[in-house]
């Protein structure tokens, strides 16, 4: 009964302590090389994606001659804590948070802006480093964040049986003629965005992410509407397998699911469709420490991950999508055909990036999800 959380704790403990050993050792490594030429970069990123160290870093070193000192940390809280230490002690140049989190890092005075002239901003696919994502990568006029990989949550539709509007919309999830498989908290956000798009909300849905009073006002409306439409839900999902079984075993015709679910069902008569309101999307990327020593190398590093080769390698390591133009051609042709089938330039530009969700927001969101499930 408690096994999953226990396993997680132990795993986190091991990862954290392994990372801790690495951190303890880091000053020694750095100081021994302090006098050598700075052909290296100290990168702190996610633990558990071995293909980074096995494939991507060697390719980067081969391309640029810069060596990567990689510190693996299990989560963003640990990264943040470590960055605070590094602000005093040094030892980190680049870290990889998600787009919704770096703002808090910046307000803690941890970050230095990137010099866009030293990067290749044209390398990025449209919508990933420009548009709304571009705005959210900047503070003032300065660029603090560049993307490394991304993923989506959109409509998985049975091509024969799902009743889709033209163009397909998040509202199709609440059409009683569709049998749907959903996860509660995403569904409430989808309802909110749909109501927002059809002009049925008293204020913009995005307000809820910055103001808790607005959140309660908006989510109460979304909850009430979602409860009315709940009759067509055949199953909830929380992970990949459940989502898949919702379609295959429980006969759902439509769902709001991860891209991987759509990919796994692509040969069984299901399509992955971006709704007119824009697919839900997340991305993570690179920020640079205020006291980074290897600034030029850091720029080379971020730039490499925007090239076809680097972006493809990074996306493959995380089983997600690449940020660079031309990278999908280097991934398996099937994957690349699948993604370009769903996301043309227009759909890419419309991606709806999950806004920052504070701890208070997520706790409240969980309560709404519980009420929605119980209704």
């Amino acid at each position, binding site marked *: *009964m*408690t096994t*999953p*959380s226990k396993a*997680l*704790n132990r795993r986190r403990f091991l990862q954290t302590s392994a990372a801790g050993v690495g951190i303890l050792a880091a000053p020694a490594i750095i100081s021994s090389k302090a006098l050598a030429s700075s052909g290296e970069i100290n990168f702190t990123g996610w633990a558990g994606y071995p293909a980074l160290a096995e494939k991507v870093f060697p390719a980067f070193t081969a391309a640029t001659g810069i060596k990567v000192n990689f510190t693996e940390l299990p989560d963003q*809280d640990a990264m*943040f*804590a470590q960055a*605070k230490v590094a602000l005093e002690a040094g030892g980190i140049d680049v870290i990889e948070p998600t787009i919704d989190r770096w703002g*808090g890092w910046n307000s*803690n005075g941890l970050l230095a802006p990137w010099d866009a002239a030293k990067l290749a901003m044209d390398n990025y696919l449209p919508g990933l480093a420009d548009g709304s994502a571009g705005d959210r990568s900047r503070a003032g006029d300065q660029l603090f964040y560049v993307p490394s990989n991304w993923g989506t949550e959109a409509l998985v539709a049975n091509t024969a049986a799902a009743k889709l509007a033209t163009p397909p919309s998040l509202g199709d999830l609440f059409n009683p003629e569709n049998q749907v498989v959903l996860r509660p*908290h995403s569904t409430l956000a989808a309802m909110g965005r749909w109501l927002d798009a059809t002009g049925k909300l008293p204020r913009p849905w995005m307000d809820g992410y910055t103001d808790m009073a607005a959140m309660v006002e908006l989510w109460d409306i979304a909850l009430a509407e979602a409860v009315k439409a*709940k009759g067509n*839900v*055949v*199953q*909830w999902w*929380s992970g990949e397998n459940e989502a898949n*079984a919702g379609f*295959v*075993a*429980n*006969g759902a015709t439509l769902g709001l699911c991860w891209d991987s679910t759509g990919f796994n069902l692509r040969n069984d008569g299901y399509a992955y469709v971006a709704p007119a309101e824009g697919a839900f999307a997340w991305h993570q990327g690179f920020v640079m420490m205020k006291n980074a020593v290897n600034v030029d190398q850091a720029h080379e590093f971020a730039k490499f991950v925007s090239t076809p080769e680097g972006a493809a390698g990074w996306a493959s390591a995380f089983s997600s999508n690449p940020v660079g133009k031309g990278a999908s051609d280097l991934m398996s042709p099937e994957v690349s055909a699948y993604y370009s089938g769903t996301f043309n330039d227009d759909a890419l530009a419309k991606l709806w990036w999950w806004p920052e969700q504070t*701890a208070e927001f*997520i*706790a409240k969101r*969980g*309560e709404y*999800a*519980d*009420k929605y*499930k*119980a*209704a």
Partner: protein
Amino acid sequence: MQDLLRRYGATLTGTFVLLVAFWLLALVILPNVTLFEASFRPYLPVVDVGGPKDTYSFDNYRKFLNNPVDTSFLGISFQLPIHTITFLNTVLFSALVTFITFVMSYPLAYYLAKIVNPRALPTLVLLLFVPLWVSEALRAFAWYIILTFNGPLNAALVGMGLLDAPVRWQNGVFTAYDAIVIGLVYTYVLFMLFPIYGSIQSLDTNQIEASEDLGAKWWQTHWRVILPHAKPGIASGCVMVFMLSAGSLLVPSVLPSTKSNWFTQTIQVWMLESQDWNTGAAYSFLYILLCTVVVTLVMWAFKVKLSDIAK
């Protein structure tokens, strides 16, 4: 201890003791003490941990009473906090699971203990144990597959013409918790059967014969002679099945309907999705406390003492 020392010598015995002590202390006691301490502190960003906001309070426990929603029971509408509803549902359906396992187990236990030919007993017990060879996760998934919309149960019933259209069994025919109850009964029925079997077996068969000789009907014999004797076994079976059901996370997660929520899932959401380990810990301890209260009340109502169960 003396036996251990004599048999294995000081070094090995010392190692055993140290390993067990490490196991208990580092893997059981310390984590629980840490959780207990954490349950009184607020969930704060890393920056604020240890700062002025990091103080002890009952706030995490109070969340159990937040968020009243409209609900109804037996036609009466009223408001209850959402997590309290989840808790009450969990207790109610765990009790139902306990009752069903008892109804299934008692006749079988009596049959095994008093009627069956002793030479057939090992075979029968083996047959009962066979499902336990498969892991709990697979057994829950097996039920998931059986009950799904495109699953074998619907295929068979529709194929035989008993049903016109397939039924969404998982979403419940009687209640939203049908599938979970089925899964839990299947998973935990043996924890009821064997304690009852044990206690009925210890009853002298002469007493049953005496009861029959004195003219008692079969149900009177069960009610007046066998059941009272089996009470400790029934009580320990009930406590085990109830606590295991209430504490199960796997079955309610694999076999949920679109309306069900088990309290363990609420704890899991606090821990994993909200990443609020402090409230998760508070809910865990609250849950242990409340379940203990429920069990104690029921034992008091049925006049069972802890010492009876320990027999």
